[in-house]
């Protein structure tokens, strides 16, 4: 009974923060109850009286999340603290997470549990024996994650991590009302259909097919990566990521050629042409022409990862309903579709993205209980309800997500046939140069320039990666 009241208090707090809609209140309370029910199994390993279930003590956990995400993650931890009596000390390290953890491990005082945003750190720490294998600790919870995700958390055949939060870079955001105005009734499911739809939108004359994010080149790299993955598959993608495949390979060249088609000659498919894309393509300004806060949209689509949702103004509602209008002040909508693969491609289910993986650095009853909790669907469920979150945990019901866009996103993630990490983030030492090279090819996709840039990229990769 005590647990229930404290949980309710937790919900009340979230209400005070104004982030939980009234309609979701009951659902969250129910979720928290379910979580507590499962908690009792985790922490007691058998039927025991309610009082003796408490482990107490404390545990430290680090992750990159700060501000809103930090509040959401604390809401995830609350039921765990309440039911086990364990005090969780959370530290949000921001974008500094990898460096901070590295230093803490070297200094001999790491947190008990840490979530890092890349699989490379997991491999490095596992090689140093700084993290503990999880298979025996997690037990049946390991089944909550698909093969693509388990593979990414495995080092030398042992499972070392739990992918708690995931991000999907496979998404294309579009304004349904603009699609409708251009006469497109269904979203493209193949690469050629996407190109055809671009022409249709351009023929309409009113909207530019694409508002391209260029920024310092990273959104172009994301676009290239999506295209490369869909054309060549995860195996080739991973070879390119480790530079065992050369940038001068025909697979890369053909991807650049397809990218040029998407962009159109001289940027014909882009809002404001190539100049406009370079001038106004800074993140997140590039999203405002598709989802303007006032007035009418000027472009139909924008390519970026699922975190784009947080840049869509709040008056936009998710989904592709019949009531969607072109006016930003009437009832505008936003929706996504999966970045399409060529029709009949075997790689349509391959997904590119990123995520946060939880690892166990010190083994105590408290830390073991915490990581097992993070692997449970109940923990992910709480954040799923709060929004701005996708889980790789396939036991989290899609109904937990607040809207259709988030549902589709989560479905794509959990059912991914293969999941690859954003390739540019793995290019330690030359990532900014890779971005500059992407901008170069974008502006001049002529075969001779592509050859020159590819040779340069091979040289840069060799210098940075040592092979």
């Amino acid at each position, binding site marked *: 009974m005590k647990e229930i009241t404290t949980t309710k208090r937790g919900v009340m707090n979230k209400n005070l923060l104004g982030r939980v809609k009234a309609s979701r209140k009951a659902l969250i309370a129910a979720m928290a109850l379910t979580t507590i029910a499962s908690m009792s199994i985790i922490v007691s390993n058998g039927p025991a009286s309610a009082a003796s279930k408490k482990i107490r003590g404390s545990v430290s956990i680090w992750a990159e999340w700060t501000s809103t995400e930090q509040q959401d993650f604390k809401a995830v931890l609350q039921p765990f603290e309440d039911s086990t009596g364990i005090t969780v000390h959370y530290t949000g390290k921001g974008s500094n997470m990898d*460096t901070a953890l*590295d230093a803490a491990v070297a200094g001999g005082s790491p947190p008990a549990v840490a979530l890092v945003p890349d699989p490379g750190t997991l491999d490095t720490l596992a090689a140093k024996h700084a993290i503990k294998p999880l298979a025996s600790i997690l037990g049946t919870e390991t089944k909550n994650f698909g093969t693509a995700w388990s593979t990414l958390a495995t080092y030398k055949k042992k499972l070392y991590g739990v992918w708690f939060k995931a991000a999907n870079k496979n998404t294309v955001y579009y304004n349904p009302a603009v699609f*409708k*105005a*251009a*006469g*497109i009734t269904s979203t493209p499911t193949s690469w050629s259909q996407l190109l055809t739809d671009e022409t*249709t939108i*351009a*023929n*309409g*004359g*009113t909207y*530019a097919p694409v508002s391209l994010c*260029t*920024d*310092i*080149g990273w959104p172009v790299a994301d676009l290239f990566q999506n295209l490369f993955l869909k054309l060549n598959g995860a195996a080739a993608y991973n070879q390119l990521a480790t530079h065992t495949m050369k940038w001068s390979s025909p697979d890369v060249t053909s991807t650049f050629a397809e990218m040029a088609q998407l962009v*159109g*000659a*001289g*940027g*014909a*498919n*882009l809002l*404001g*042409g190539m*100049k*406009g*894309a*370079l*001038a*106004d*393509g*800074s*993140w997140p300004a590039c999203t405002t022409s598709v989802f303007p806060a006032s007035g009418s949209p000027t472009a139909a689509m924008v390519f970026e990862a699922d975190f784009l949702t947080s840049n869509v103004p709040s008056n936009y509602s998710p989904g592709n309903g019949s009531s969607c209008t072109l006016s930003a002040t009437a009832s505008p909508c936003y929706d996504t579709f999966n970045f399409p693969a060529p029709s009949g491609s075997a790689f349509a289910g391959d997904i590119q993205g990123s995520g946060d993986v939880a690892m166990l650095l010190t083994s105590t009853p408290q830390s073991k209980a915490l990581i097992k909790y993070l692997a449970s669907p109940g923990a992910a469920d709480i954040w799923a309800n709060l929004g701005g979150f996708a889980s790789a945990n396939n036991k989290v019901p899609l109904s937990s997500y607040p809207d259709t866009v988030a549902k589709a996103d989560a479905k794509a993630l959990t059912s991914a046939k293969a999941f690859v990490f954003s390739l540019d983030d793995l*290019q*330690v*030492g030359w*990532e*900014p*140069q890779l*971005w*500059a090279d992407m*901008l170069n090819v974008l*502006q001049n996709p002529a075969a001779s320039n592509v050859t020159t840039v590819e040779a*340069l990229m091979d040289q840069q990769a060799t*210098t940075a990666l040592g092979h």
Partner: protein
Amino acid sequence: MTSITAEGPRLATAKASRHRGWWRRNWVSLAFIAPGIIWLLAIVVYPTIATIRFSLYDESATKFVGLHNYASVFSTDSILTAFKNNIIWVLVFPFFVTFIGLMVAVLTERIRWATAFKAIIVMPIVFSTTASALVWRTIFDLDPHVGVVNAIEQTVSDWFSTPGAYPLNSAIGQTAASLAAFNATGGTAGTVVSKSAVQPGGTVMMGLTRISSATLQTLGAQTPVAPQIMAGGIAGLVWNDFSPSQTSNTTTIVSDEHGLPNLRLSLVNSTGSSVASTVTNSSGDFSFSHVAPGSYHVEILASNFQTSFVGTFWLGPQSITPTSGLNQTAQSLLSVPLIDLAMIISYIWIWAGFAMVLIGAGLAALNREVLEAAEIDGATEWQTLRRVTIPMLAPVLTVVFVTMVINVLKVFDIILNMAPGSSQGPATTLALSIYNDGFTGGIHSGIASAIAVILFILVVPAMLWNLKKIKGGNS
């Protein structure tokens, strides 16, 4: 500070009693300067040594790599670009800012309300560079509706070529031919001509696409009406052949399509010369009456599609490159990114006031007798300035110049805030490279430290020279 270093060697050999005596004499002064010394050691000396050390170590700062990071600095394209941009800044900015500062200082001596005028010129120094950069970013914006520079260019451009009723979007490289959809094709010199020939008594229908709904609305376009046969004449229709409800229908008129009004047409005979001209009505219909027998084509004149102005991409990655008689390396070395010029103009706006104040102070301290002597000898204003004022001001001018050289060697915030993402690379400088390599994305403390050391070495001579000059001025 001087007393400690001077006493240092003596202390080492001194007897214990003298040692104690020294401490007794100086402990009060030492106690007073100790906080300052500790502060300097902690925030200047230690970081400098640590930076030099980092520059000789690998990324994890654990493995000694010698001068490897320095080799990387000089072989990385993006850092070489930074060097080039720094050179451009140093060559252009200090000269112009000193020159403009001098001009303003000399001229404000001769006007009423000089103080108010000076206050306005000095004001930009008070603003944060970030704010100034954002203002100038807007001033140079590509869109003439936003950026005032392009708005001026547009006004001038429109005097010479007025955009047509259906201006092509030259930003996306649109051509008249790309508009042709049904029974239409690109003609000579930007015209669109009907594909099929027509005789008197016949009708012509031409469909165009890629016409924006805003244009149709402005022109009051009505529902298209199929042309009626006209004895001895040619009737026709030009319409926007795009229907949201039937996107694939490109051969017939659909109810939600529009006629294209205000199009200037001419009737061209088989030898290619124009025999009649007309303008389409609000439903896109037109007619030529009393046409002599023969075979004709309808031509939509190029003036209808005269492009609208597209702004100069001042903040873009393109460069002003000398083209003639140079090889590629020389060209890339001599090319000046347009954005560098835009940023230098903005930076002059920020710093001209500072130059003016220093030079103005120098002017006030000038020996008036010499100036009066020049005036009595009949020197013109210009001669006085060139032969008397500037030589006498030379010490002040060089201090301003060198201060500005130091200032732009470390130029940073204006670039970070003024250049759009896509131009950050082409516009980068050494200071910005330190930040990007050392603090964003993958952290490369080794390379960033190496650049910092190089920048330090570049700044030190100018700084020492300036210190000497200022000290010399005092004595």
